[in-house]
């Protein structure tokens, strides 16, 4: 795949407040550098993350998405991350079936102590998405649906 050096991917990270958000704070306090492409949306828990929001993000032009929360058994709310994991497993195969490029979604655990892991996660994801190029296929579909008024007809 041709790597597009001019291309700056837009990546949104959906993270939980207690582990990954705090981990990303630690990346900051440790002054570790990473790419500017990723912007964090804070949730109380990965269990809160509605995966339809991921699709909305792609529809509106995101090139990649990161979902990250506490490691298994470390959830602040006991089991939210297990629900998220189960949802991800089910969602991934459905997306795959639908033809969505699941390489665009990076699912990970980053704890509050893993500042460097967060930096690596961001940098690797940015590099991967950069290699994949803009998510034009999804854009085409989204634009088509928008223009053709698919919803109204249905």
């Amino acid at each position, binding site marked *: 795949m041709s790597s597009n050096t001019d291309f*700056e991917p*837009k990546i*949104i990270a959906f993270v939980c*407040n207690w582990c990954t*958000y*705090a981990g*990303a*704070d630690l*990346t*900051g*306090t440790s*002054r*570790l*550098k*990473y790419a*500017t492409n990723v*912007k*964090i*949306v*804070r*949730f*109380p*828990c990965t*269990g*809160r*993350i*509605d*995966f339809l*929001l991921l699709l*909305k*993000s792609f529809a*509106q*032009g*995101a090139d990649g998405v990161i979902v990250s929360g506490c490691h298994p058994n470390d959830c*602040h*709310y*006991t*089991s*939210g991350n297990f*629900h*998220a994991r189960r*949802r991800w497993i089910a969602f991934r195969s459905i997306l795959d079936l639908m033809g969505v490029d699941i390489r665009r979604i990076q699912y990970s655990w980053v704890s509050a102590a893993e500042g460097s892991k967060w*930096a690596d996660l961001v940098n690797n994801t940015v590099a991967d998405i950069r290699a994949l190029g803009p998510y034009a296929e999804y854009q085409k579909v989204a634009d088509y649906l928008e223009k053709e008024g698919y919803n109204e007809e249905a």
Partner: protein
Amino acid sequence: MSKIGVFICHCGENISATVDVERVAREIGGMEGVAHAIDYKYMCSDPGQTFIKEAVKKYGLDGVVVGACSPRMHEPTFRRACAEAGLNPYLCEMANLREHCSWVHEKSEETTEKAIDLVKMMVEKVKKNKPLDSIKVPVTKRALVIGGGIAGIQASLDIANTGHKVILVERDPSIGGHMSQLSETFPTLDCSQCILTPRMVEVAQHPNIKLYTYAELESLEGFIGNFKAKIRLKAKSVNYSTCTGCGACIQKCPVKKIPSEFNAGLGTRTAIYVPFPQAVPNKPVIDRVNCNYYKRGACKICEKTCQVGSIEWDKEDEIITEEVGAVVLATGFDVKGTDFFPEYGYGQYKDVLTGLQFERLASASGPTFGEIRRPSDGAIPKKIVFIACAGSRDPAKGIPYCSKICCMYTAKHAMLYQHKVHDGESTVFYMDIRAGGKNYEEFVRRAIEEDTVNYVRGRVARVYEKNGKLIVKGVDTLLGGEQVEIEADMVVLATAGVANCGSEQLAQKLHVSYDPYHFFAEAHPKLKPVETNTAGIFLAGACQAPKDIPETVGMASGAAVKVAALFSNDELVREPVVAVVNRLAPPLYSTCVGCFMCETACPYNAIEHEEIKGRDGSLIRTIARVNQGLCQGCGTCVAFCRSKSIDIQGYTNEQVYAEVMSLLND
């Protein structure tokens, strides 16, 4: 249109060194709905906060975004400032320009653009924010302690001494628990009853403690600060208000051969009984299963003996309701019986004992008055074998964990035996010696070096009886795997500590989680060891995992402090980050269809069923309702809801959507 104020902090140079803060303020100032945008060196400083307060008043702001450090650092600071200026604090949000931007990127155009994006996100979010009030929950300042062993006793006394009322419920006729059965305690060898019984008496006499013995929790409803406990007072068949505890009935009771629970089955008791001489309360109950009158309808000798007429034959179980604000679970543990071990004879050899039975033999108040004698023939054993890890650390037996107390009490048992039988020989078979604890290792060394206890590192494959001896076949793994065979007179198994019987059912009644071995689960293994996942319910002692007396007492005091902290306010104030189910005007009432997927998602049992009834009282619909006292705000229910009827305040679908869209719609 919104009137939002945006305040960009330089954080000295922490942010301004890499982010062009003036440009951020300038560009954000041009956004729709932004009424005021400035940058300043230290927003968190007094003058910085004053800027915010004054702007709120001057421009009549209906939302504030502070672009500064992490909200985990200063969100409370800025929200407080807003509140002081008369703006609802939950209309203030922070954009993390330091930890998530200036500190992790080099100085560049992109860094400033990211900072602008981050502030934009929060501006769009704040537009959707709604004023919220912190949740206030009244607190009933009375605690329920379940279990009257040392954990429950300690927790009760500590709570009662802070001036709050305590209801202590104990299943057995007396408080005291396992500790009252112990002979001496490690690592000091002080007598267990000598240190415990004064505390038992203190419980009984404490003006703040209401003691219900021979009672069990029937059900618990409600939530933190507001529990309703139904307690079953089992019929004692003796009127405690008139009974003097003289004990004449016990002397005369003809049913004398009931194995005594207190003596771990080694001694006997009568049908009307006090479990042990120092029992609190020191008044008898009638064991209806074994009593001649209840079995066959005749006897009543105790009634004839009783000079105050205290026997109540027709007394029934009574159920009372108590309102409490917090619950401490202190239901303790149990030990596996010898019948759990086929290789050691399925419990059929009388002289194969559990550690707890040995405690009774060694206890001055025990069936042999402290003399170590064989249950089979009363002889003093000359050779004794202790087997540590009987069941524990054995996945094949279904108990992979370490029971923690056995290494220490086995050393103590061997020591006590050597002190009592001077010409006796004792051998301990062990896997590892785990003597972590103050003066613990020294204690074990003393057993080995001063009291010449023979420690053999290896397992025992089999114990069988032959010619009145117990043949112990084991292996010494330190001496090249030599087989060892000892003809012992007595074998003591340090049987595994397990969850108390009924703990699973109790956990389900209380909605607290439990581990695969039915020990109650703490809220966090490191940082919340005495809390459970159900707010207002705390743990003390071995009901959480096997533990020794000092640890149990420490944990009980910890739980007591948690209860006292809860009781220190009249109301519980909580962040309003909780889930809510939407309500609409009739005839819709709500978009909730009552599928209760949220209920399956909720780890806190915070979802209730709300019945919507018509004027005539007929049921129209059942929808979900969130108990704000129990909800912890994880939002898992929101993702589960198919009709988007449940949402979480502070992180609503609308807010999060606005955030995401602000990043993408250029």
